[in-house]
């Protein structure tokens, strides 16, 4: 339902787009009353004039090329003519650019509202926008996974992260300085190299973690129950959750993690940017004809073919990027050489470690993608972790691969 209304909103916005830059005033149902905002429609997005923000209880100031929007709890600093924004000093990239038109500054309305904690919808009744305040997740934060409830009672000041996607998400929402321990696989962002290594996800060194004495240990999917029990025995708080398997789960998990580390605004901002990037790409790729068939290599060669089946987030972003996932006919990760040959994908993408096998073995010689030199090397980490990079980098890489002319239209 939510998706349908979002789509509706987009299609209305697209219609507006084709009628050129539209100057308008938009009605907004907000905290029980209806406001009229000065807005412009551009690139399929509603931009709100800085001067209108006061009616939403926000202060607006312009400092050269930085537009500052704030209230008591949060400060958003937009750099004009770029897609950059800082939320409480954490950097985010938007799907569109903020800009100045005459004396007026225009900022992305949906992003502002979503960061403040509103759910934004198109309201048919008033032919305007409706913003519904969402329940703030506050302490104690409860996360449930595998029928276990984990409760975080207060903001942790030190964290050991036992999964690369968790580490990346923490850094993305500005909680990177809390991370005092990480696994040897946590290699992004660069700043992690200064953080103490605690071993692998599955076999972290218990002593080292206990010695760090963090307020919270966060583990995902690949963890060993005995080790977590050991941490609990050592009086450490533990949060263990299966990693997200879909984009929707990834958004949800990001918000939860944000609440856990008291970065609600940042987490909402991140989710808002991720969602709008996905929507923007969908908008462009939606009516592309002749979508290329793509195959993602997880493993290949002697030990069999492994790829991402239809129930994975990789399959989801292939779809968003305007491709067809060849492996949508299976669930899970196991595939077969025969099926691969039978489906004959247009594009194969995978890590550089599998490039040699795929391009030199006789088995793959007949594939269209190999013949046409269409094995594209991608960063495995980006596609294996449900973290913001999946959209910021991964999605873009795929769009470029599938529909080169679309990628130029994207401003992220």
């Amino acid at each position, binding site marked *: 339902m939510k998706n349908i209304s979002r789509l509706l909103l987009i299609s209305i916005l697209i219609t507006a787009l084709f009628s050129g830059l539209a100057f308008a005033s938009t009605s907004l149902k907000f905290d029980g009353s209806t406001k009229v905002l000065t807005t412009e429609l551009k690139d399929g997005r509603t931009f709100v004039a800085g001067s209108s923000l006061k009616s939403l209880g926000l202060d607006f100031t312009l400092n050269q090329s930085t537009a500052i929007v704030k209230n008591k709890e949060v400060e958003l600093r937009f750099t004009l003519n770029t897609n950059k924004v800082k939320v409480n000093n954490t950097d985010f990239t938007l799907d569109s650019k903020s800009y100045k038109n005459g004396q007026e500054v225009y900022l992305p309305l949906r992003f502002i509202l979503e960061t403040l904690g509103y759910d934004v919808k198109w309201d048919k009744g008033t032919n305007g926008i409706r913003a519904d305040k969402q329940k703030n997740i506050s302490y104690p934060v409860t996360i449930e996974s595998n029928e276990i409830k984990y409760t975080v009672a207060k903001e942790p000041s030190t964290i050991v992260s036992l999964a690369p996607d968790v580490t990346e998400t923490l850094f993305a929402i500005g909680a990177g300085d809390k991370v005092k321990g990480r696994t040897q696989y946590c290699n992004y962002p660069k700043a992690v190299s200064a953080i103490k290594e605690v071993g692998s996800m599955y076999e972290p060194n218990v002593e080292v973690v206990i010695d760090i004495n963090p307020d919270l240990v966060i583990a995902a999917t690949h963890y060993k129950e005995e080790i977590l*029990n050991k941490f609990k025995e050592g009086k450490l708080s533990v949060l263990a959750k299966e990693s997200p398997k879909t984009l929707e789960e990834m958004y949800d998990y990001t918000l939860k993690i944000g609440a856990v580390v008291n970065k609600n605004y940042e987490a909402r901002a991140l989710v808002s940017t991720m969602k709008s990037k996905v929507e923007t790409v969908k908008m462009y790729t939606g009516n592309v004809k002749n979508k290329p068939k793509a195959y993602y290599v997880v493993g290949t060669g002697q030990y069999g073919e492994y790829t991402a089946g239809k129930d994975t987030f990789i399959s989801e972003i292939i779809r968003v990027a305007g491709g067809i996932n060849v492996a949508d006919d299976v669930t899970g990760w196991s595939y077969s050489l025969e099926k691969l040959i039978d489906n004959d994908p247009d594009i194969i993408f995978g890590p550089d470690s599998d490039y040699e096998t795929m391009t030199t073995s006789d088995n793959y010689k007949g594939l269209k993608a190999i013949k046409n030199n269409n094995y594209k090397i991608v960063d495995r980490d980006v596609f294996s972790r449900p973290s913001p990079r999946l959209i910021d980098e991964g999605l873009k890489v795929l769009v470029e691969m599938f529909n080169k002319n679309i990628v130029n239209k994207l401003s992220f």
Partner: protein
Amino acid sequence: MRKNNKIKIIILLGILAISILFSITVGAVKIPLKDTVKIISSKIGFLSSKVDISNIKESNIFIVLSIRLPRILLAALVGSVLAVVGSSYQAIFKNPMADPYVMGVSSGAAFGATIGIVLGLNKGVFGFGITSIFAFVGALITTIIVYNLARVGNKISTTSILLAGIVMSSILSAGVSIMMIFNHDELASIVSWTMGSFNGASWKQIGVIVVPVAAGLVFLVSLSREMNAIVMGEEDAQNMGVNVERVKKMILVTASLLSACVVSVSGIIGFVGIIVPHLFRLLFDADHKMLLPVSAIGGGIFLLLSDTLARTIVPGTEIPVGIITSIFGGPFFLYLLKKSKSRKLI
């Protein structure tokens, strides 16, 4: 001779004690030797009132008492059991290659554990120890199957049991592999389990296995005279008044239960059951009265030191202990084998 043996055992016990003390002092986190000694002595009855550990970091106390100590003791215990079980299997099968692998016990445990992992029972509400229980049941069922396959009437044929065990092992290993293929997500857990590890060892695990394991060890050692007789020849043993079939069955059942117990907490650790008994046969004598106790102590030392290496050799990274036992134990054993003039292999 007897006095000599006693001295040898005492020396070995001394080495075991030193190994334990040494292992407690090393680890990824540097804890001063002085503090370690204080922490340990604070737990020893008559000393506890004399040492003051109030100014030592609480996390260090936890590391010594709840991470290192249980891990070290568990490794020593598992090592003892694997070595004694190996010696016993080798005696009753009169085959130098016999160990828990051959009986299919290890593969059965791996199969059980893999099912537990694949069903996701190793996580969530069931959490603690479910994989171990599955491993134990797997080991047990496999042993029963192998035993029944090899039983002809009231007799167990040594050749049949070895063949049945090896074939069962292959079948179950294939089963584990197929589960690995279809459960890509759990690959790491399964591989880690099949390579053995003491990471995360706890007093609870020791508490669960120590009584049955100690009883089993004592029982096997008490059968050393019978084992000697069986090695000399089953007919001679019969003539000496040993009920060969009954003794073989008792040893088989006890040894299998023991290995099922330890494999379920440690995962599969190869090689200890073969290398340690043979090492002591080469060093001392094939007399089981001597061989079983020294194997128990020696197995403990060997696995304990291997595990200490496994957790310290690359700081902050755990290396599966099974790899260490093979890499370091293997060449040493080959050297002894080559050097030894009398090849008392069984």
